[in-house]
């Protein structure tokens, strides 16, 4: 028997299913240890919860109540992420006003102050500043748009991040260290031997229709909320990878409306926030059990109203602001019966399916953006131990692509003749690799053209992400660059982006046009629940403009 195992040949050591923050994090960790990896993603990188999170590497102060260990690991790893990808992080100072109407408001403020004294102990782990207790006057000065009678409040420090860029950083680094990755390629079966142990996966490329199989010693299910479905592909009961799927939505508004992130309370007493995030304002989030189609999860009007009403009570200027889009994702929370959604821990767990008769199959369940790296390390330790690989984890010391060197966006702008804002946004997304994007412009000056004015995104960047970051569609490009997510909703850039993507991927111009329409349709669907007076005009304008240029099918106009 043992001789047979030794001579058995595998395409790779590990197949990872899922291109979210856990899957890409694990791929990178394994690749850096010299383990051969193949990653399959059914949709696109960061398609699920990872690309639709609150966009924060926060320490999770609210977890302090339920599980201080989550706060500790989150803060520790937030510090690691800052070291390996400094370009991706931006400071978000939070204000938490305490309203006078609240029973025992002054006592509450004292308690909150004390609570943040405790949180301050974790702040140095993530280069956070200690909290400050604020008087009502100070609050008003910092954020004049706040209304309501307050007894005071606190300011505390968190870090924002673009979750999609984080996943791509991990994946690109994994690929550069020998990993293989396929996006829009779904695993159709987890192959098992007669004794039940895994031997690989069968897959189908959803774009080309190509099918194939890849053999591996280990298969890791890192599919987040899809985990039970993935487990069933290996013949396991879905409950073998049980989790509690919690849908969370965010609404984003055109431009930054506040100086600070502000904590607000919903009608049922939950804490939510409004925060400046990249070049938008984001409000979030909800947390509800979700058992719908994970591939088509969108925010509903009910969810949107719930958030908007809560924020309007403390920051009424939001009424006049223009909502331009929503995100919706499903958290893969660890399964537990009984507690309400917020009390569920964001802790994570590597499940060994040997107990279900599937030796070599593991599931990564739970986790959150802030602790993705430590979770990946834990999973990679399991994989390495099994493979007899003794290499140490390097993901907290080795930089992510673009994080190795600081680049001044303004000098980039000067060198390449770009607008400062375009260079700044480019540098945010790519760090020192912004230079590689700009090298394209030296070779082909035409690529300096701005494709998406709202973000803005250059033609060179569109081409770069197709060539280097596995983007295959307009929607993929949008996820990587935020193209088409501004106020115009892609009306002015989708068609051009489709042309470029088709050209880069050797597809026909018609396919490029179809891709543009698919993106426009899906973006419009994500906006339907939040369209207000101003955005309605923009939507009607976009419909007319897109029809004139590309034509619309009925599916676009009707629900």
């Amino acid at each position: 028997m043992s001789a047979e195992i030794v001579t058995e040949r595998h395409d790779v050591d590990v197949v990872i299913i899922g291109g979210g923050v856990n899957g890409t994090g694990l791929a990178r960790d394994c690749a850096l240890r010299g383990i051969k990896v193949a990653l399959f993603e059914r949709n696109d990188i960061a398609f699920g919860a990872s690309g639709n999170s609150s966009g924060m590497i926060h320490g999770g102060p609210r977890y302090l109540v339920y599980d201080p260990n989550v706060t500790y690991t989150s803060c520790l790893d937030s510090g690691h992420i800052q070291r390996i990808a400094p370009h991706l992080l931006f400071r978000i100072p939070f204000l938490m006003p305490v309203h006078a109407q609240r029973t025992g408001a002054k006592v509450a403020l004292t308690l909150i102050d004390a609570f943040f004294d405790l949180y301050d102990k974790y702040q140095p782990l993530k280069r956070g500043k200690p909290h400050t207790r604020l008087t009502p006057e100070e609050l008003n000065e910092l954020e004049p748009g706040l209304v309501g009678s307050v007894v005071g409040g606190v300011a505390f420090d968190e870090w924002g991040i673009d979750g999609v860029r984080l996943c791509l950083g991990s994946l690109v680094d994994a690929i550069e260290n020998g990993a293989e990755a396929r996006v829009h390629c779904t695993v159709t079966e987890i192959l098992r031997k007669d004794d039940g142990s895994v031997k690989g996966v069968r897959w189908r490329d959803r774009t080309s229709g190509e099918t194939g199989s890849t053999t591996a010693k280990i298969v890791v299910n890192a599919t987040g909320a899809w985990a039970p479905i993935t487990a069933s592909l290996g013949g396991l009961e879905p409950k073998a990878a049980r989790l509690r799927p919690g849908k969370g939505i965010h609404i984003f508004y055109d431009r930054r409306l506040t100086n600070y992130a502000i904590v607000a309370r919903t009608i049922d007493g939950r804490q939510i926030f409004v925060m400046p995030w990249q070049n938008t304002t984001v409000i979030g989030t909800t947390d509800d059990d979700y058992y719908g189609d994970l591939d088509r999860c969108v925010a509903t009007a009910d969810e949107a109203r719930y958030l908007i009403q809560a924020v309007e009570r403390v920051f009424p200027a939001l009424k006049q602001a223009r909502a331009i889009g929503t995100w919706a994702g499903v958290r893969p929370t660890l399964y537990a019966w009984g507690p309400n959604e917020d009390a569920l821990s964001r802790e994570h767990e590597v499940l060994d399916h040997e107990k279900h008769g599937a030796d070599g199959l593991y599931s990564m369940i739970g986790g959150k953006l802030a602790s993705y790296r430590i979770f990946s390390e834990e999973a990679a330790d399991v994989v390495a131990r099994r493979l007899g690989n003794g290499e140490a984890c390097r993901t907290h010391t080795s930089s992510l692509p673009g994080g190795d060197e600081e680049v001044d966006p303004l000098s980039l702008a000067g060198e390449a003749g770009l607008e400062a804002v375009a260079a700044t946004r480019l540098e945010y997304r790519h760090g020192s690799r912004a230079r590689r994007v700009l090298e394209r412009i030296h070779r082909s000056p035409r690529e300096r053209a701005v494709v998406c004015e709202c973000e803005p995104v250059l033609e060179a960047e569109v081409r770069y992400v197709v060539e280097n970051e596995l983007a295959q569609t307009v929607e993929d490009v949008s996820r990587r660059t935020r193209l088409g997510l501004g106020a115009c909703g892609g009306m002015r850039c989708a068609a051009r982006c489709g042309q470029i993507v088709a050209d880069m991927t050797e597809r026909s111009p018609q396919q490029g046009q179809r891709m543009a329409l698919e993106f426009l349709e899906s973006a419009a669907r994500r906006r339907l629940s939040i369209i207000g007076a101003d955005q309605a005009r923009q939507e009607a304008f976009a419909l007319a403009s897109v029809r004139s240029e590309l034509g619309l099918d009925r599916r676009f106009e009707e629900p």
Partner: protein
Amino acid sequence: MRVAVVGTGVAGTAAAWYAARGEGEVVVVGSGSGSTALYSGALDWLPWERSTGEERLDHEVMAFATALDAWTVGSGRCRVATRAGLARPTRAIDTALLNLEPLAGRHVAVVDTPRAGWDGPSLAGALAESDWARSTRTAFVPVSVDLCAAEHERDIGDYDFAALHDDEDRLSTMAERLRTASTAHDAWLLGPWLGVSTEAAEQLRGLLDMPVGETTSAPGGPAGARFEAARDRLLDEAGTRVMPARVAAIEKAANMWTVQLENSKAGASDLVVDAVVLAVGGVAAGGIVLDEPARAFRDGSSFHLSLGAPVRFEIDGGDADASSTLHGFDLERRGVGALERVGVAADHGAVRGAERLFVAGDVVAGRPRTVLEAARAGIAAGRAVLGHTRESIT
């Protein structure tokens, strides 16, 4: 007898042009570009995806096009190149656009000039691979020619670049450069750069002695500007009075309509007229406004006009009321296309429940949001106005 036409897009222009045949005074009140900013230069009758482009046009619409002198309305279908690379049918075109239909089977040169946002080779490739080009064996070939006279012209918008070519010397230079670049083709396809007045394209054709024309314009591009130039001339020739003002509200008083102008002292310059045509555009142009949810619920309707007027809104044959859950209008159920289907309830252009109040163009419920429909509806409203005016005389 006085008539007020509110709105200076295609529908308002057509209504005023027709109503000016009557004996009374026609006052056109408008405050800006509105839906003409949307105008691409492709003039559809039905939404083009569901049309053959060969529909018969009302002879009055043909007469309007002739009077406007900026449109080419053939007896059959036209075909335009869109910036996204479609060779699509349309019923008529802004005269500066290149009509591809008669060029079937020929060789079309697509200008490849280094301007931001213009990719000649990629456009030529997309057009060449279109179903129409394949089935008619029409060739689209990129031809490199620099049409910019200065470095900064590479980055300016299409409108500004087009405006440069209203200058005759500049246009001759363009003709010269095109002629030098190639004479081996049957036609030239350019971006929307041929002037913001209506003469440049025809002049260029004369200079080159071959078909030359533009792709469609982006919103806010030169095609809309050319319409506005033609409109101003037409309304002037028709003897209408044009008031650049915004209307705050129209109200019925003593069997007359009072048109209240915004920012004018109460009553000071209000117009008192016998009939009103509302051609204020749909949601896209800002003529119809989607209400904030709370207000929508209070008033029972999710929509209102950008001016006060006694109208009711309809969608898909029913009232366009708010949903009962304080969410305002239920777009999730209706789809985003609802924003184009909603409009004022009217019968043959007459607002339901109001006398001598007419609507035309995108503001009307359940009609196609197209340029030629706006012209047709404007003419119908103008005709209805005259009918009513005559009635009141007798």
